[in-house]
């Protein structure tokens, strides 16, 4: 489904090719199966956001390539949709207008995109908030709008860049559970960037541990916990604790 091959990215100071500032990614290879939920985990500056932005087609790589269904990625495409760290909503659009945005760009007729958008707003539990502006609703609700907007395009791959980093702890747990439920209902592949170990284990089939300077993949940890994970207290499971300890060790080393 998704293949990343020998990907490297260097950032330069003031875009000056004589002043390399940071090797954000060095020789990253990764492959993700259809329907898989993969987390990219690592400290700040390990290049996880850079990696997801390259996969999204928002940033060109310096070496290597990204293949989606065998085709190289050079620009954003409708099969990949991004959910942003700071929600990425357009402040001049209402909740409904924001969800519609993706379909509008694609040229879907007004009536149809309204209908689809309402359906996805309903799915993320925001029915009745269509006419609010982003600043009038809470952070958790704003990110639900971001998720509804991404889902409305029925992407093959959902790219999530620390989507729950800017909401409070309780809302975060709630959103994680909702995400898993939505993911179970759709057949989407998810790439999820986070720096929370618990979040990555709770959500993923596989956790890709990265480290920084240069940004590269240290280890891939398969999470073989049963699903659905929202029933009972999976975080109290000894296997969860083992995975947590193992990943923490990997991050530290």
């Amino acid at each position, binding site marked *: 489904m998704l293949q990343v091959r020998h990907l490297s990215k260097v950032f330069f100071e003031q875009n000056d090719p004589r002043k390399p500032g940071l090797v954000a990614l060095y020789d990253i290879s990764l492959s993700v199966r259809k329907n898989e939920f993969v987390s990219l985990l690592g400290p700040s500056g390990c290049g996880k956001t850079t990696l997801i932005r390259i996969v999204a087609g928002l940033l060109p790589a310096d070496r290597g390539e990204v293949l989606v269904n065998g085709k190289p990625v050079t620009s*954003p495409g409708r099969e990949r949709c991004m959910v942003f760290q700071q929600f990425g909503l357009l402040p001049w659009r209402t909740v409904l207008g924001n969800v519609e945005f993706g379909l509008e760009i694609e040229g879907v007729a007004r009536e149809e995109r309204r209908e689809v958008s309402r359906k996805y707003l309903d799915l993320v539990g925001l029915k009745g908030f269509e006419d609010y*502006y982003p600043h009038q609703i809470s952070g958790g609700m704003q990110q639900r709008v971001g998720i509804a907007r991404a889902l409305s395009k029925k992407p093959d791959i959902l790219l999530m860049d620390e989507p729950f980093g800017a909401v409070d702890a309780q809302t975060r747990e709630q959103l994680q559970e909702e995400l898993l439920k939505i993911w179970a209902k759709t057949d989407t592949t998810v790439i999820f960037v986070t720096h929370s170990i618990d979040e990555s284990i709770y959500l993923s089939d596989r956790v890709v541990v990265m480290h920084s300077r240069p940004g590269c993949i240290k280890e891939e940890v398969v999470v073989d916990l049963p699903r659905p994970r929202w029933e009972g207290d999976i975080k109290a499971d000894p296997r969860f604790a083992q995975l947590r300890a193992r990943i923490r060790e990997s991050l530290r080393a």
Partner: protein
Amino acid sequence: MALNALEQEALTALDLSRPRPLRLTDHLGLLRASSVVLFLILWEVFGRRVNPLFLSYPTAIANACAQLLASGEFQRQALGSLQVYAVGLGAALVLGIFLGLLMGRYRLAEYLLDPYVYALDATPRVALIPLLLLWFGLGAQAKIAVVFLSGIFPVLMNTFSGVRTVSSGLVDIGKAYGAGERQVFTKIILPAALPFIMAGVRLAVGRALIGIITAEMFTAVTGMGALLIRYSSAFATDKFFVPVIFLALLGVLLSVAVEALQKRLAPWKETERAL
């Protein structure tokens, strides 16, 4: 949002409907109106004691106004001024927004145009009026040129900085959802810069009004500015105040209109305000 049953109960228990002591801030509109009335009364009383060559008073001005309106002279001059104003300002807004967008978005346009823009903007417009009169004569063309030059820079500069402040994050959202350059421009840059553009329009509306009056005072042939010169040279102070008050009212009206437009075009900004 509607209150739920528990909130309703809490509200009843709180009983916020108790009579409040009289507060001045509860009657702001009334206070403003009485202040204006008081000012007019004081002006009338003291204005009558001053030599009419130097100062007039409200009832005399009202009389003068009735006279001028009856002769049709005032309307004719006002219409002439407004036409020139509308044409000059219209052209300034269209070209100002266009160039501002272009310079804000494209480095090439910025580097090619900014020496002229900054130089012309820094030059006091009054300094250019004699030259413009030389080129275009005493008719409408010269005045349109002055209004245009007065109005274009505030809107151009504001549009430019509006486009410049659009964060790359917003542009990324557009790109991530597949927007091309044209869509990024119309669906991200333009709405994001709109509050800045409107602030520029508001400034331009005022500057252009100054522009038209200055130009007309120079030419002293037609328009509001010419009336000001004519009445003041004739020491007809009561008549002099008629165009002054007309211009003040016009300025206020335009400002209110632009504000209403701003609210309509950028409603998301409205609810973010602190006061």
